[in-house]
């Protein structure tokens, strides 16, 4: 992505601690935008992988070593992203960063809920973490969103959930397979087809394009428009729907508590007896079952066939896939599967798994949203990786304002999904007009980003 050789100097210098899956993904996204990225990791193997594949500076060493942070040039850096799997390493890295550079922005990935409860810990006086990213809580939120939209494979919230980007996998027997985009005209103004992921490809659809089975279609919807029909979503209120959770780790137990509060009948299976006991103490109505999620007899005994949602969130992703497949075969209506390896995500729909959630993808999304804030308010990479949803503000100086959308020369591969004007949310048609200060949700392919920036007269790397 070759935008911006001319405006060097405005790029941010970002140090990422941890070259694991999360660190890698963030480094990849940022280096595609030509930011100055430094990645620190202890594992020489990971450093080698990153040097071979990404155009970033990879440094071998510990992110909790002040010497190492100095070598990476933390004094001139704009931001530190602590994205290792260890909360403690992330916190120490932020603390050291604060000590070495008082102005640096710090983003930390944190998972242990006990730390999160200690609000003062992150205040100005102590660690001074500017943003905490807790992938598990983001993931719980995503799972609840998905339960509200049983037909969806992916949901991204904008504007505190008032606008949703909903990804739907078109099944071969779906009435929508084979229909042209044009034929959905009745939905104009309420729902917009934003992007289609077909296999490894992503594209922004035109009126003549046809939806095919196995496509992942991204729609932009107002959340209050969802209940009004539209069979795409099969929207149903959550109350009274039966949920089966496998795995009582942090995600599983947080999800169980959240669903219990919503008065949904929850059963949760866990192999570890101690975890079961602890959870049973914490929960009131939910049923905690000690056993193996892959045990067919146990699942049948617990009436898996009447279950609306089977959520497999154990720490073992291969196991999660098997549990979901088994549950599906035994009659569960819908499965939600936790997968960490991002490379699996494009594969799973092919083997019949409905919906996938990934704490790492959640973390990447959350961190990127924070990094790119500015006039580009937030951003979310779509599944399939080559497209993003961008939230941006329309400036008075931009060519897009005060002209009907149909007349605006948008770059190929970009589309306005929603216009947010104060409290009002508009799903645009060709006649809609963008006014200055409106906030826009734009779906764009990576290669359209440079042109889009120009059009918005915003640089993605503004600040």
């Amino acid at each position, binding site marked *: 992505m*070759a935008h911006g050789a001319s405006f060097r100097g405005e790029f941010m210098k970002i140090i990422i601690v941890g070259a694991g899956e999360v660190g890698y993904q963030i480094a990849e996204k940022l280096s595609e935008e030509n930011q100055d*990225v430094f990645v620190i990791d202890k594992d020489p193997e990971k450093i080698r992988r990153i040097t071979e594949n*990404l*155009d970033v*500076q990879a440094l071998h060493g510990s992110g909790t070593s002040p010497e190492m942070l100095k070598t990476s040039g933390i004094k001139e850096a704009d931001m530190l992203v602590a994205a290792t799997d260890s909360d403690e390493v992330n916190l120490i890295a932020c603390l050291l960063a604060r000590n070495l550079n008082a102005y640096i922005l710090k983003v930390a990935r944190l998972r242990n809920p006990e730390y999160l409860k200690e609000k003062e810990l992150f205040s100005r006086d102590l660690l001074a973490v500017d943003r905490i990213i807790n992938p598990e809580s983001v993931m719980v939120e995503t799972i609840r969103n998905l339960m509200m939209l049983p037909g969806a494979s992916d949901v991204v919230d904008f504007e505190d959930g008032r606008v949703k980007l909903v990804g739907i996998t078109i099944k071969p027997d779906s009435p929508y397979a084979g229909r042209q985009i044009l034929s959905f005209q009745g939905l104009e103004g309420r729902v917009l087809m934003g992007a289609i992921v077909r296999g490894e490809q992503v594209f922004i659809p035109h009126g003549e394009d046809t939806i095919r089975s196995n496509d992942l279609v991204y729609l932009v919807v107002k959340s209050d428009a969802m209940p009004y029909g539209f069979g795409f979503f099969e929207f149903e209120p959550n109350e009274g729907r039966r949920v089966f959770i496998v795995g009582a780790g942090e995600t599983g137990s947080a999800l169980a508590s959240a669903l219990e509060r919503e008065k949904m009948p929850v059963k949760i299976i866990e192999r570890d007896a101690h975890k079961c006991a602890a959870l049973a103490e914490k929960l009131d109505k939910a049923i905690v079952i000690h056993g193996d999620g892959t045990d067919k007899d146990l699942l049948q005994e617990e009436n898996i066939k009447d279950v609306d949602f089977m959520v497999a969130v154990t720490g073992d992703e291969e196991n999660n896939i098997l549990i979901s497949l088994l549950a599906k075969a035994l009659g569960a209506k819908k499965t939600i599967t936790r997968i960490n390896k991002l490379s699996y995500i494009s594969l799973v729909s092919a083997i019949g798994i409905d919906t996938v959630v990934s704490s790492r993808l959640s973390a990447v999304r959350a961190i990127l949203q924070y990094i790119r804030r500015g006039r580009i308010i937030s951003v979310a990479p779509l599944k399939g990786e080559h497209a993003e949803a961008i939230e941006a503000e329309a400036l008075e100086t931009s060519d897009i304002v005060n002209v009907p959308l149909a007349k605006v020369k948008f770059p190929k591969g970009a589309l306005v999904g929603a216009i947010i004007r104060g409290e009002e949310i508009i799903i645009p048609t060709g006649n809609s007009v963008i006014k200055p200060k409106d906030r826009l949700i734009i779906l764009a392919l990576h290669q359209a980003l440079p042109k889009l920036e120009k059009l918005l007269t915003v640089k993605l790397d503004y600040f």
Partner: protein
Amino acid sequence: MHIRRVFRLIGLLLCFLGLSMSLPLLVSLIYNDPSTRPLVFSIMLCCALGLVIFFLSRGEEITHLSHRDGVAIVTLGWLAAGLAGALPFLLSGAFDNFTDAYFESLSGFTTTGASVLSNIEKLPPGILMWRSVTQWLGGMGIIVLSIAILPFLGIGGMQLYKAEIPSPVVDKLKPRISDTAKILWKVYILITALQIALLLAGGMGAFDAVCHTFCTMPTGGFSPKNASIAHYNSPYFDAVIIVFMLLAGINFSLHYRLLKGEAAVFGRDPECRLFLSLVGIFIVLVTLDVYGSVYSSLSQAFRYAAFQVSSIITTTGFVTADFDQWPSLSRNVLVLCMFLGGMAGSTGGGLKTMRVMLLAKHAYQEIFRIIHPHAVTTVKLGGKAVPGEILSSIWGFFILYLGIFVISTMIMAALGLDVISAFASVAACIFNVGPGLGSVGPVQNYLHLPLLGKWVLMFCMLLGRLEIYTVIVLLMPEYWRK
């Protein structure tokens, strides 16, 4: 390998080389010499051919290049550069056959500086300038230049960079590879300008100053004079060129750090310390050896010894004395210099100081282990342990170098060269030095060699410049297997 991507970039490279002939064209217009038409034709031919290849091979994105694409682009790119460089030589009638023109051109781009011209001074200034420009472009690397200029290469640039500048330890000055390439070229241009200024200040003509500088900074060694630097017989020019040859033999990232204001970088870098000490020791050895036997005054002995040692160890190949007539110890020291070469990350050839240093340390470690069988030891460089895989890759490199060296020497001997000439011609070419000993000595040239011998030496030059692996990999059947 993605054949389209590879050819698309080679098409671009050809256009680029065509455009780089504008400088010689300008010179030729100023001097109103007969090379104007050949140069214009060469530019048009290169650009036309480049554009045709570029457009015929469109259709694949070139942002993501694999390792395999990288080595193919670099090796084929260098072969294509040789071809483009030979055009002005052929069209201007400087050579009457393709082999000699290609030899001169490849010797230029690989910064070897081995010439097949017996009377250099009779060539028109435009062609002489082109000879120098090939060296200057080849020194920092034509591919690295394209990485600096073509921003869309993105990470693909890294694969090309590694294939063209194969250093045992990758030195990335900036997080982005295109920025690193830009910095290297900026430093290169800056030092080049400085040398031109100093030569002009000493009274050298503008044309000669530019030509010599263009051949000093890449450690090339072409000279527009038949007698090379000896032509001027000026201690001032000798001194300036010695200093800049040594600067060119030092890792360019050290220059960058020096320019950024870091103090004493040369003294603190272990490789640089070793390199400069070796230069010092060799100069003393040769001075003592030639004092009395060749030169009657100590200052004369030192002046010629310093120049020859600096020229050969940085693999430049300028001469101010016919060292083939020197005593045997001096000649031996100079052959050793050819093997050692400059520092990693410099424009010099040879095995590189870094590799020699690490091999020596590793060898010492093995001896140490025999004495203390249970000792835990690591090879350290600047306080940091060097991973075993880097050491084994250097050993592999060393063995390959020796193997190719031995086979090439055998071929040269079989073609009828005497022992010293066979050995020295291969050493001078594979280490990108230029002048050797015997019949390819400093006052001789390579014109008299048999046809096959020239091609073997051209292969050696390319192997030496791209440091073996990049070229050898392409010759492996495994590379072409799907």
